[in-house]
């Protein structure tokens, strides 16, 4: 059963052609075949969101997408969002607001937050909380993550928090 299938992916702007088993998960294609290890795996059940990437501009959980389903799509991972010296505003805000501790959920959290802000550039605190409900963090208690996203959206943290 299951020969390999040809998959074309554009990842962080670069075209790739991969031969994959149909069952290969997108997250493993990114990590093991393309070496993009910033996208993490934290659960088996699509709950934790550590594997969040953008697929054709939308946040998805790459552990619950087959690589073959992404054939022809554009994927952005944390590595493509920004880099040291050229940080995406959400990355910068996580750094400035202590929005991470162990850092394991962080790439997925940042990708989810970046997608949220694309859709809703000035979210309220509650909209941010609902917007990140698919991403588990065990370290920060979320407080500084919410602050980070408010900051990245150019909103005053203290005004929004006390509101």
């Amino acid at each position: 059963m299951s020969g390999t299938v040809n998959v074309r992916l554009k990842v962080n702007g670069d075209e790739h052609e991969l031969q994959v088993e149909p069952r290969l998960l997108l997250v493993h294609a990114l990590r093991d075949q393309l070496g993009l290890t910033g996208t993490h795996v934290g659960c088996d059940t699509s709950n934790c969101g550590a594997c969040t990437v953008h697929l054709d501009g939308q946040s998805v959980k790459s552990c619950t997408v087959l690589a073959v389903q992404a054939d022809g799509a554009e994927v952005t991972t944390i590595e493509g969002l920004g880099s040291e010296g050229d940080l995406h505003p959400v990355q910068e805000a996580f750094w400035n607001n202590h929005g991470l501790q162990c850092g394991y959920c962080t790439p997925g959290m940042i990708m989810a937050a970046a997608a949220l802000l694309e859709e809703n550039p000035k979210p309220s605190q509650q909209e941010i909380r609902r917007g990140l409900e698919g991403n588990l963090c065990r370290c920060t208690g979320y407080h500084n993550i919410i602050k980070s996203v408010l900051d990245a959206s150019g909103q005053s943290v203290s005004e929004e928090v006390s509101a």
Partner: protein
Amino acid sequence: MIPAAFDYVAPDTLEQAIQALADGGEDAKLLAGGHSLLPLMKLRLAAPTMLVDIRKLPGLSGVERQDGHWRIGALTTHATLEHSPELGLVSEVAATIADPQVRHRGTIGGSLAHGDSASDLPAAMLVTEAEVTLQGPDGQRTLAAAELFEDYLTTAVGECEVLTEVRVPVLDGYDHSYHKFNRRSEDWAMVGVCAVVRAAGGTCEDVRIGLTNMGSVPMRATAAEDALRGKELTAENISAAAALAAEGTNPPSDLNASAEYKRHLATVLTRRAITDAAG
């Protein structure tokens, strides 16, 4: 966790997809967004030998209004439904499904064909009295939502059939509400109650109530509906009707909710949903 190996095709036409399902035999499965199927496959609770991916089939996405119905393509994502407020209850319900990432991939067709009574859309289909179109080797047929859900994770979709579209009546004059009760907002419903109400001069002309996770299939709370239809929408009448919401249900107990608790929740949530919809 990693799925067991399978064969894979992504046909270009509906006919090819139906043929591929027929060729694949009983262990062939249709793949839409994959957000019901892939988690089961990763845990190896499902191990289809063939996946027929319908992502390339033309015309299966999107929402359009046709003759008093909303025609919703099977591959329309929950996120699209969420952002189509004109869909009323269906949009409100879709916005509560899991989390944004799941809503970006999960599809209405996949959800309905999977037929999990704990998922949010099935009961909304009963309440809106939607129908689904199935395409199979013998042609096309249309089923009322009420005929679609047969048993626990069992639907009337045939092994070689593709659920291609959902037709939701435009409910002009109805207000709607969905009360989903869970521990965390990303969780499955412990119990969910969706309701639509059409009122005139404070009187309930029509009410329909759908129950999520109150049995092996989604269901209507018909006793509660009958008790309220034609009555004034007073708090007393709504409460009295809601008290009947769990009548005829036999929900399974689980770790977080006993059958008794679920039946209680159904009455509370029904009262709240009707009150909101009538408010």
